[in-house]
């Protein structure tokens, strides 16, 4: 991978990582290290039903002043507002999120409202905050979003009919505890979908026009770990070694895309998610190889790195041949992990993709795509290929 002489970038990744089997039992110790004395735990009913909260509640004892669990799959502006109001009433001075991307993003936005006051719609813009927000400790229960280390949060705004993107350096989580046991009970489809979310973060970080050497390194290793360990997680979900490596991959990919940002795959996944309620990771996974094919002429060097991470770059292959091998490997990989291959398998209709193609053009991610997109018909063409 070559870099221009005018290469310049900011790399930002201040989140402390605690990794290990049973590390989530240290939540009270880690919370205290951040100065927290009264924790609001943000989670969802699925986590509670799976019994994943019991040992955390036990560890926190009376330092847990409340549990907010009314969080749907695609969290919304009103969910954040209600959660912040509840946390304020309970006197929380730290937010602990235990869940997947929707839970973590809800908690991130609650931190803003707990620090700054007001409602989420008052924060319309980018990098508006001028001071650190109240501490946020994350315990992910999926391995995919990378939200535990990023400055971004995605929240559905039904009034706008579109997901809102908040990007705030002052609101990155302070600490993440990666405990492989917290993902061991994930069902196959969710493991595959969230794993492909991480894979998409890594590939998009590589092809983003803002990619740089640090994020490239993180992304390539994330792909390497996912290629090796995600299929094992599908075959045997209780393999804690594989679960742990996939968690680490998701965090590496989170740092990569949190700095290099993402492109057309996310623009399309956000839009089809808003219109047809396709889970984000599944949408990313279904779209990724097709979007790589769309971009291939613009960034063969980046996809050659994907081929190297997959171990399919043969001696003597030029970048374009390696990039083509990477696209084929990605298609085969999604089959290996038993991911749905077409959007129609997740109830997307022809009318949905027409609306989504228009919406994708206004998504913040699309400006970083390596191939400049002039018209929604180009996006629609990709959607049609995977419908």
């Amino acid at each position, binding site marked *: 991978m070559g870099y221009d002489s005018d290469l310049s970038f900011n790399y930002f990744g201040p989140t402390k990582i605690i990794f290990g089997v049973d590390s989530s039992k240290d939540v009270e110790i880690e919370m205290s290290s951040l100065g927290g004395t009264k924790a609001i735990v943000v989670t969802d009913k699925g986590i509670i039903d799976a019994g994943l909260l019991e040992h955390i509640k036990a560890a926190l004892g009376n330092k847990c002043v409340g549990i907010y669990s009314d969080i749907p799959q695609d969290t919304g502006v009103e969910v954040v507002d209600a959660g912040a109001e509840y946390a304020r009433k309970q006197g929380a001075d730290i937010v602990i999120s235990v869940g997947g991307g929707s839970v973590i993003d809800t908690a991130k936005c609650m931190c803003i409202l707990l620090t700054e006051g007001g409602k989420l719609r008052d924060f319309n813009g980018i990098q508006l905050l001028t001071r650190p927000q109240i501490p946020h400790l994350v315990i992910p229960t999926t391995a995919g979003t990378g939200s535990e280390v990023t400055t971004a949060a995605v929240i559905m705004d039904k009034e706008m009919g579109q997901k809102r*993107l908040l990007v705030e350096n002052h609101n990155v989580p302070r600490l993440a505890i990666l405990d492989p046991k917290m993902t061991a009970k994930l069902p196959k489809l969710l493991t595959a979908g969230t794993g492909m979310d991480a894979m998409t973060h890594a590939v998009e970080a590589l092809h983003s026009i803002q990619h740089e050497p640090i994020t490239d390194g993180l992304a390539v290793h994330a792909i390497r770990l996912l290629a090796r360990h995600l299929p094992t997680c599908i075959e045997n979900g209780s393999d804690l070694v594989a679960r742990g490596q996939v968690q680490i991959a998701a965090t590496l990919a989170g740092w990569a895309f949190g700095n290099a940002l993402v492109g057309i795959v996310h623009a399309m996944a956000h839009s089809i998610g808003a219109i047809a309620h396709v889970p984000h990771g599944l949408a990313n996974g279904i779209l990724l190889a097709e979007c790589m094919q769309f971009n291939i002429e613009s960034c063969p060097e980046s996809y050659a790195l994907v081929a190297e991470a997959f171990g399919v770059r043969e001696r003597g292959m030029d970048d374009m041949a390696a990039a083509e091998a990477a696209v084929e490997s990605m298609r085969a990989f999604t089959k290996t992990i038993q991911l749905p291959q077409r959007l129609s398998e997740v109830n997307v209709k022809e009318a949905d993709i027409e609306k989504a193609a228009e919406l994708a053009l206004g998504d913040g991610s699309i400006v970083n795509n390596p191939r400049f997109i002039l018209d929604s018909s180009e996006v629609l063409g990709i959607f049609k290929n995977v419908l």
Partner: protein
Amino acid sequence: MAKFKAMTQEWLDAYKAAIEADPEYKPMAKDWEGSVALVCNPDPSKGVPETIYIFMDYWHGDVGEFLVCDKAKAESATFVMTGDYSRWKQVALKELDSTKALLQGKLKMRGDLPYVVRNIKTVNKVIDILGNVDTLWPDEM
């Protein structure tokens, strides 16, 4: 050609005239609705002793008020972008991409981000035109 001191009314008048004279601007900006305020944080060491507020009104390819204004007027704009003098100078000289600057926190923006993204070609065009205004920068005077 006359040179205009950056972020003064004369400079803004020249900028507005340059936009109006650009044949590509009007059709490109036909969908844009909304005023834009630029807030330049003070930097006495670079000849900017106080905060400078600028208000620019853009509407479907037409340009309205272009004013050096007070804080209240600036904050009434649909989009308010804030940054240090050095960052604004980098953007004007095209040394810093405005989208990258926003995402990295070098500039801040209050307003509808998806709308700006949908109209990114218009935003880039007005920055291109700014580069054509012969400017005297306070730290170079």
